[in-house]
């Protein structure tokens, strides 16, 4: 009986746990509740994914109202895949966070507020993925956005406040643009259900209103996913937020926006309109390529390593959008699989940063001298994540770049393939800067009890779970690349 209601439980579990945090208040109880809720959420998403793989897409009618009148929750192979990623990262980071925030949120004795906002953010992100209703997307978008502004502003540095403020301005503009786009589509079709909209839209596809709606949605989603040149809010937000928040948002928030891009342009507007008629790739591909190269170049010159990784995230968004802009099965597979893989590796890298903040209090490159010796396990995880970012074989990063280069060559775009390889070199440069300082320089002279030790196990274990996943999915691609390919085929409509 209960398994019929899994789609709604996916949202309800974190949504109900969030206000419970406010009622409980006790630090131990709240932490335990948050960790339990996130793991239950993860279990539900795995169960949903398994069901989808066996029986095909699930449609859930909220309150028993049949779509298109009622709100529909829809889990297909793509949304199931992204649900597993987001809830998995959510559970791992929640398990990792108690030790970290005990150091990073000293002024906020009230840790329950952190977990309340964290669970709400998770609810919003999962809701965007699972819903099949356009207006519902906007509501969940704002739930996740508002809670992430709060989470970012909890950073120790006062610049976290200004970063959260500019993210709020940019994020609200983006969400309002999406709302305008949804409104214009509603004017033309009188429906908000995505599947129904896709059918009705074909009758009015050539009107100016639909084209304007398309433009508003592109700009809105691009702002939310920090596509170059709309990425300006991202570096500061990631650099000054508490480490747990950075690790969580970097691995999930922008990925969910990429998912939204796929949903809007392939499911709602359809491949024919978005890519044949509107020639969306002319717009997306240059921005993706410029973003990849410039953001990687800027990353090379950053001394705050969290900021460096944030710029690298902007570049990685470029890879995902590049994959989408090819609009071919291998291109989309590359984009979708990179969405998953980048979530894993960037989360591992930011968790390593969090361990360093826990012991050293800073992630400035000068503070990292000799950490290879004093914190061997943390730095090993950083190197593993870094290798994956570069795209070394046996890591997940290689799988995504393989598909992207393959897609570029299929279409004869060899300069694009060269640029992908060139930016991997840039990634090697910025990762190497950290490796050089950490492994080939003497630890800064601190003696006695003040010396830096390895991070505690409660931080190391969740981080190493991700590192193992990086290598596991780098060797066994059946789950990730296999599912991504099926999702790409269904988006392009070539699958049965």
């Amino acid at each position, binding site marked *: 009986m209960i398994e019929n209601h899994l789609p709604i439980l996916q949202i309800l579990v974190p949504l109900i746990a969030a206000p419970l945090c406010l009622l409980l208040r006790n630090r131990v109880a709240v932490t335990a509740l948050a960790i339990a809720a996130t793991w239950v959420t993860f279990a539900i998403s795995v169960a949903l994914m398994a069901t989808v793989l066996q029986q095909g897409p699930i449609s859930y009618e909220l309150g028993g109202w049949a779509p298109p009148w009622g709100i529909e929750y829809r889990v297909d192979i793509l949304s199931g895949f992204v649900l597993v990623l987001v809830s998995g990262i959510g559970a791992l980071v929640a398990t990792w966070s108690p030790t970290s925030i005990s150091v990073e949120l000293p002024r906020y004795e009230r840790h329950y507020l952190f977990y309340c906002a964290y669970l709400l953010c998770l609810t919003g992100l999962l809701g965007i993925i699972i819903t099949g209703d356009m*207006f519902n997307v906007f509501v969940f978008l704002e739930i996740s956005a508002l809670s992430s502004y*709060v989470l970012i502003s909890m950073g120790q540095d006062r*610049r976290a406040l200004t970063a*959260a403020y500019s993210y709020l301005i940019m994020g609200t*503009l983006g969400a309002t643009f999406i709302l*305008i786009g949804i*409104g214009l589509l*509603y004017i033309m079709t009188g429906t908000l259900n995505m599947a129904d909209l896709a059918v009705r839209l074909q009758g009015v596809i050539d009107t100016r209103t639909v084209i304007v709606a398309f433009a508003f949605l592109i700009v809105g989603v691009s702002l939310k996913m920090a596509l170059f040149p709309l990425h300006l809010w991202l570096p500061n937000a990631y650099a000054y937020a508490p480490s747990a928040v950075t690790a969580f948002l970097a691995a999930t928030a922008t990925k969910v926006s990429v998912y939204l891009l796929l949903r809007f342009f392939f499911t709602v507007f359809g491949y024919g309109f978005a890519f044949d008629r509107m020639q969306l790739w002319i717009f997306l591909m240059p921005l993706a390529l410029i973003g990849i190269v410039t953001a990687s170049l800027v990353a090379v010159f950053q001394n705050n390593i969290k900021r460096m990784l944030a710029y690298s995230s902007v570049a990685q968004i470029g890879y995902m959008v590049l994959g989408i802009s090819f609009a071919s099965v291998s291109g989309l597979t590359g984009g979708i699989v990179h969405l998953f893989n980048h979530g894993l590796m960037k989360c591992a890298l930011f968790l390593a940063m969090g361990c360093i903040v826990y012991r050293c209090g800073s992630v400035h490159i000068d503070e990292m001298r000799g950490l290879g010796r004093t914190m061997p396990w943390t730095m090993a995880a950083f190197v593993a994540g870094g290798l994956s970012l570069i795209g070394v074989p046996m890591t997940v990063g290689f799988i995504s770049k393989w598909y992207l280069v393959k897609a570029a060559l299929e279409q004869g775009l060899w300069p694009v393939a060269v640029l992908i390889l060139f930016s991997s070199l840039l990634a090697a440069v910025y990762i190497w800067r950290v490796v050089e300082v950490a492994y080939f320089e003497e630890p800064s002279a601190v003696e006695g009890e003040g010396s830096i030790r390895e991070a505690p196990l409660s931080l190391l274990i969740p981080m190493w779970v991700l590192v193992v996943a990086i290598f596991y999915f780098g060797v066994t691609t059946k789950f990730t690349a296999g599912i991504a390919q099926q999702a790409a085929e269904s988006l392009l409509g070539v699958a049965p």
Partner: protein
Amino acid sequence: MMETIGLYNYWVVVVLMMTGFYIVVARDNLIKKVIGLSIFQTSVFLLFISVGKVEGGTAPIIAEGFEVYSNPLPGVLILTAIVVGVATTAVALGLVVRINEEYGTIEETEIHRQDAEA
């Protein structure tokens, strides 16, 4: 010509939207930016509500003698969007208060100057 004037509420929407957007981009004061953002969001509410009105229609309650009803759905949607807008403004103002505590100013250029010095 008459049609252009008859659709005047859409012109109001466009003017409000651009006013709000301009304030967000051009103003230096963080509170004024929040005000601009609110105006920007409000214009979208107006857009939705205008769409729901059917000429000659009444409130959508079935009654004797009425055949034409306005569409209630956009109004309901906007009720949700207004709540979101209020929440956004509240969070934004909360952040401005905290920024003022930390920096002693809410002028953006002054904040950038302090950050550059640090």
